């Protein structure tokens, strides 16, 4: 299968008063149609930057330095602004964090949805547009009358579903969901995630779910990519990731999870995430890594492929190889 999304050597920097912060450092990633990938990491690890870079929505002082993002054979980075505008939503859609704040409070939901279609297909008839919006609302389990409502008339879960409905309006090939449920409680969270899951299956789109809730990842995704200080440290199937994580950071992350069998045991990860302005030499994780070796302090580990299509960037596994 040819991947629907190919990210090659993507590098993003923010130029701040204190120096250049490399938020995304030579990231490579492939995603097949219908695949669900979870992108996890601490705050500041570059998850959201990666999403914004894929949408080409990085704002100054940030800049995409190099690399390519290919969706269905088209490199988004080389498109001009107008082509990119058309590609957003029709090729690649972004469901933002905090649905509460992303809808316009003074426009009806329907008007906002119609706006999105108009921007892409200006000569579609009004009736067709309305029908397409209604269908999109129905596919996320909302009633047709939501079309006439304002954002304040909806609950948090319903607003998040409206955002999903807008995201899938033009049947994109890649959907990026940035912590779509972080503001919702568990019951609503489950319903929203099941909605995304069903819609994704119907459309055959690839989904990137960004978040730090490993529980949600275990429930939802096929593959997990762990980010640390702007680099991918491990990409594995969800089962491998939870049963035998390879990278020490992934191991610590899995160990820090509370579950029913280890009541009362808390194992946080010692130390703090590094500032992107002062990323340690060598492997960025080495100051916090319990298994750090001398080579980790000097050399950045390359991403290598291991059994079961796992990608890991760690010196532990290259010894003797």
């Amino acid at each position, binding site marked *: 299968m040819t991947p629907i999304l190919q990210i090659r050597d993507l590098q993003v920097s923010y130029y701040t008063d204190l120096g250049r912060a490399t938020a995304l450092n030579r990231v490579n990633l492939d995603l097949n149609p219908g695949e669900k990938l979870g992108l996890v990491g601490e705050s500041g690890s570059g998850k959201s930057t990666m999403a914004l870079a894929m949408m080409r929505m990085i704002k100054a002082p940030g800049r995409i330095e190099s690399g390519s993002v290919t969706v269905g054979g088209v490199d988004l980075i080389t498109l001009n602004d107008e082509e990119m505008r058309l590609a957003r939503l029709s090729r690649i859609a972004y469901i933002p964090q905090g649905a509460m704040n992303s809808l316009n409070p003074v426009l009806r939901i329907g008007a906002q949805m119609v706006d999105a279609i108009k921007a892409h297909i200006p000569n579609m008839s009004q009736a067709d547009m309305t029908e397409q919006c209604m269908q999109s609302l129905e596919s996320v389990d909302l009633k047709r009358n939501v079309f006439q409502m304002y954002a304040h008339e909806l609950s948090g879960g319903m607003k998040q579903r409206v955002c999903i409905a807008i995201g899938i309006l033009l049947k994109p090939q890649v959907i990026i969901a940035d912590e779509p449920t972080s503001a919702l409680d*568990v019951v609503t969270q*489950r319903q929203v995630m099941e909605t995304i899951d069903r819609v994704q299956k119907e459309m055959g789109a690839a989904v990137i779910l960004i978040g730090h809730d490993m*529980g949600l990842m*275990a429930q939802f995704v096929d593959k997990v990519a762990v980010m640390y200080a702007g680099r991918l440290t491990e990409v594995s199937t969800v089962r491998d990731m939870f049963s035998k994580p390879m990278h020490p950071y992934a191991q610590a992350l899995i160990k820090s999870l509370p579950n029913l069998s280890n009541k009362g045991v808390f194992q946080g990860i010692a130390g703090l995430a590094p500032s992107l302005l002062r990323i340690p030499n060598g492997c960025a994780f080495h100051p916090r890594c319990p298994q750090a070796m001398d080579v980790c302090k000097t050399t950045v580990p390359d991403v290598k492929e291991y059994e079961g299509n796992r990608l890991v960037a760690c010196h532990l596994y290259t010894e003797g190889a």
Partner: protein
Amino acid sequence: MANLLEFRNVTKTYTRGYFAEAGTTALADFSMTLKEDEPTIMTVAGESGSGKTTLAMLLLGFIDPTKGEILYKGKNINKLRGDDRLNYRREVQAVFQDPFAVFNPFYTVDHLLTVPIEKFKLAKSKADARNKMEEALSSVGLRPEDILGRFPHQLSGGQRQRINVARALLLKPRVLVADEPVSMVDASLRANILESLRGLHRDHGVSIIYITHDLTTAYHVANSIVVLYKGGVMEAGDIDNVIQKPQHPYTRLLIDSIPWPDVDRRWGSDGMMVKESETTDKGGKGCRFAARCPHVKDSCLHIPPPLYRVGQTQVASCVLYDNNPVLPATQLTDVLPV
């Protein structure tokens, strides 16, 4: 045994002006006691709109109950004056959900610690105050030299939240209300903050009321749990029993919806799915959960079910258990272990 804190049939109704129809009952006839010599960690769980934050606000005296009263060491907290009030303000502390909103961005973070020291005259001298601050910060795993003199924007969310815990520690409270203290911090820091809270309970004998919708963390820190739905107690008891053998359909739904970090325990295997309530039912009559309950019967719609005992340390407010003995709502604390 003296009661430290007591909720007596507390009801809080939010009304919309004098002419509007019946308001929203955020907390209905809630009774609970915390004993003075038995510090505990109690979880109050529920979805948004279940009344858990109202409970916190009532307990902190920010809002007055519509009916009933809240007693602190035998005195109604809304009528405390003078020294009693100051004492209550010092001994009942809070850690809030959002570690970003509680700081004033114009002051260094020291401000959050020096104000209570001055207000409650905790230190004899400047040096003593400094020592106390450093001690409190170290005990939540922060290095004072990294923290003092910094501005809030220079610190991470986890650090800020731990400063809040340190502040609570500084005042040596008897009761700490923690309203979703970890919902805005990363998973890896969650463990550290929860550990600081547990240390506060273990080493300083502080009773903690842990308000959350996250039953996984609740299970790890708490001794007992009260599950609220639309202001009413649905299920309560020993946390191990409630989490492992939930009896009320609502608790089952909540527990079933937890995204367990375990690939072998996926959602929806037992297919108990309840529609998000699209109707804004007024509450009042009948069981509050009836509109979403898969086991709903006619009898549910008329009288709210009382708390039925479903075990030594567990009660559920559901007619499915109407053969079991009833526990009066005022004796809820009997089934909450410490």
